[in-house]
């Protein structure tokens, strides 16, 4: 059995609001070629297994795993698809390597959201067909309810939620891969068109297209490919109740449980101290605060205040979503988690360019599967 797993290569394509000149296969191919060059390997010779993440309805193709191998150089290899977030895929790759049967595994996730003409209706098909769908909920109504409960329980203010958006979209201005950078004021965010109160249109991430490929290897093989490995020290994932009727509204229990699992593996007793920066779910602005509190980085109701005070800014004590998060790089559907993991890798390698954080050695990426799920995953990475 292998005992440690490291990320040895990353590649990405995008992220952009529309990519009319590229098919999803071409997006993936571009990301894969970059990742393989980064890891200095030949996929046909060196990579032993491939994991992809995808959902049929987003792709408009049933059993979409059919169309995954060619553009990855994965034909006639052990390839499988996880119906999950990219971080679920990353956790799967780690498990494959930890069994000892595989030494080098690649993970792929992508979004071609711009291809989906009826994305809100497609997402609506995720609601319980018997109990919920007849009620014809708007998709944003569900996080709207959740946000309302979160504000009520924790005393977080609308301004504090808006400060997340201001921070993340400003962060995105110095991320060349993020299309939604903007210099907004609190008033700009608060004056957005109401969507599902207390949510407004400026607190919902816009979709983007892109693809990310990450290559992982077991400890004994790492140094034949790279001299700057990023070690995966903990992975965790969890599903809370999928039923709207009996979940714990206002709390991200999936994030809490996933983080606990990952902290346990990483042997972290005081994650707040051990982790230098985090990339968390912010598809809806308030989710950043809710997820940070669920994972234990702040007590309940304190993340909003900390954000207002600059604690989570790039030069703060705990930088959060330096990449710009989904507010900045776009909602990449199930590739969101891999985009966050990508940022952690770049920061730990010191390759984040103008947004590079100083002296960081450990980072965390967390992701949520989107409306109406209560499921997500966490990955902890370390440069040492």
């Amino acid at each position, binding site marked *: *059995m292998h005992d440690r797993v490291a990320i040895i290569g990353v590649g990405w394509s995008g992220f952009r609001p529309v990519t009319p000149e590229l098919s999803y296969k071409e997006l993936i191919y571009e990301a894969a070629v970059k990742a393989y060059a980064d890891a200095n390997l030949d996929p046909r010779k060196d990579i032993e297994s491939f994991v992809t993440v995808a*959902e*049929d*309805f987003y792709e*408009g*193709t*049933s*059993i979409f*795993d*059919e*169309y*995954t*191998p*060619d553009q990855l150089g*994965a*034909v*006639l*290899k*052990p*390839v*499988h*698809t*996880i*119906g*999950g977030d990219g971080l*679920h895929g990353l*956790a*799967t790759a*780690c*498990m*494959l390597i*930890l*069994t*000892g*049967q595989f030494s080098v595994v690649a993970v792929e996730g992508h979004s071609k959201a711009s291809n989906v003409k009826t994305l809100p209706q*497609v*997402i*609506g*098909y*995720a609601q319980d*067909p*018997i109990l919920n769908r007849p009620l014809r909920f708007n998709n944003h109504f569900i996080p709207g309810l959740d946000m309302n409960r979160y504000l009520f329980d924790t005393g977080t203010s609308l301004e504090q939620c808006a400060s997340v958006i201001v921070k993340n979209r400003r962060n995105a201005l110095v991320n060349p891969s993020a299309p939604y950078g903007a210099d907004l004021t609190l008033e700009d965010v608060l004056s957005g068109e109401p969507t599902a109160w207390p949510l407004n249109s400026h607190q919902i991430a816009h979709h983007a297209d892109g693809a990310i490929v990450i290559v992982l290897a077991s400890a004994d093989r790492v140094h034949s490919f790279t001299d700057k490995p990023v070690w995966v020290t903990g*992975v*965790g*994932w*969890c*599903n*809370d*109740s*999928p*039923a709207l009727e009996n979940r714990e509204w206002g709390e991200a*229990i999936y994030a809490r*449980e*996933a983080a606990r*699992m990952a902290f346990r*593996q990483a042997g972290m007793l005081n994650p707040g101290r051990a982790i230098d920066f985090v990339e968390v779910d912010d598809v809806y602005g308030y989710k950043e605060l809710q997820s940070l509190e669920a994972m234990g980085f702040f007590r309940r109701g304190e993340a909003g205040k900390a954000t207002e005070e600059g604690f989570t800014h790039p030069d703060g004590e705990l930088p959060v979503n330096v990449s710009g998060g989904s507010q900045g790089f776009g909602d990449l559907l199930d590739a969101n988690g891999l985009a966050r993991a990508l940022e952690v890798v770049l920061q730990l390698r010191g390759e984040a360019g103008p947004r590079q954080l100083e002296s960081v050695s450990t980072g965390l990426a967390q992701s949520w*599967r989107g409306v*109406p*799920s209560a*499921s997500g995953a966490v990955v902890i990475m370390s440069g040492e």
Partner: protein
Amino acid sequence: MRKVAVVGAGMTKFVRRALETGKELSWQAARMALESCELTIDDIDAVCLGTAPDSFDGVHMNGEYLSDGSGAWRKPFMRSYVGGGTGVFVPIQGWYHVASGLFDIVLVVAEEKMSSYYPHAQAAFLTIFDHTTERPLKPNLLWIFALEMNRYMQTYGITKAEIAHVAVKNKRNAADHPCALLGDPNLTVEDVLNSEVLAWPVNRLDVSPVSDGAVAVVLAVEHVATRITDKPVWIEGVGWNLDTAHWTNRDLAYPRYVEFAARMAYEMAGIKEPRREIHIVEPYDPFDYKELHHLEGLLLADRGKAPQMVVDGVTQRDGDLPVCPSGGLLGVGNPIAAAGLMKIAEIFWQLRGEAGARQVPGQPKRGLAQAWGDLMQVGTVVIMGR
């Protein structure tokens, strides 16, 4: 490497149109699997789910929807899929969950509810084809498998009557399976040949039925498995392999992806001579010719020679190499992902000597289950032994 065992199994009846929702079917199978090894859901560290396309149920992110029914409330949960190969892939997913060292006991559930697609699930398959080059031709699964069956027959000079022996054997075997949808102890080769032609050379009785159902198994790591049961069934080898999406460029006479998956599993299990070392086989048989095709891909028969084995009775329950003693998909039914996991459950019961009227004589020691799917593209193989 950590050894992983199957310690419990449960399955619902396979039926044409279940009144239960997919969640309820999953729950029934999961509960039976847990009861079979006297565990409760609190003992389960993680849950793996297999279900094939979302379009059957018409539910986007169907894995999330089914998660609580599968027992995953506040637990690590993941859904994997490789099309029709999912049923034998999901125990592989459970295997790597345990073998990685992250979990000790994992519940593996496979569910399929095809009847929600009204009037017939066949139409859902239109959406598996390439949206630009193939969908405009309105292909249908029966047609592409008719192509493959025809190619197989032409390459090796095989007759429809030889292939029909598989349907007869499996549907007769299924008459002894309490969960089966299409068991028939009196079926003959003539019945198969005289059934309605769907897409030549495929007749109605050459095909497995559209079904609803769920199956679950419990996997445990060695030191836990031996405390749970006196008769753990070990997962000795796993393999899976995905070929290109360009199926039209493939030689349909031989499934090389099945061979690659089988070689991976044989190597892991340390099997040098599969024909001597495998005692029971549950190859994937959604069509009767597929069982033969897969026996060849699994290297258990020479190319083009599997039909003769069936005609000679070698693959009967009391033959030298019992094949699909459960009744297979042709007899028990084909709720896609659940049908694959049914094969794992069958090997589990056979190796423990708990298969009742279906029991293969001679105390078999090692069995192999295999599934196949996507665009005639993926092979998944699990080898189990006691």
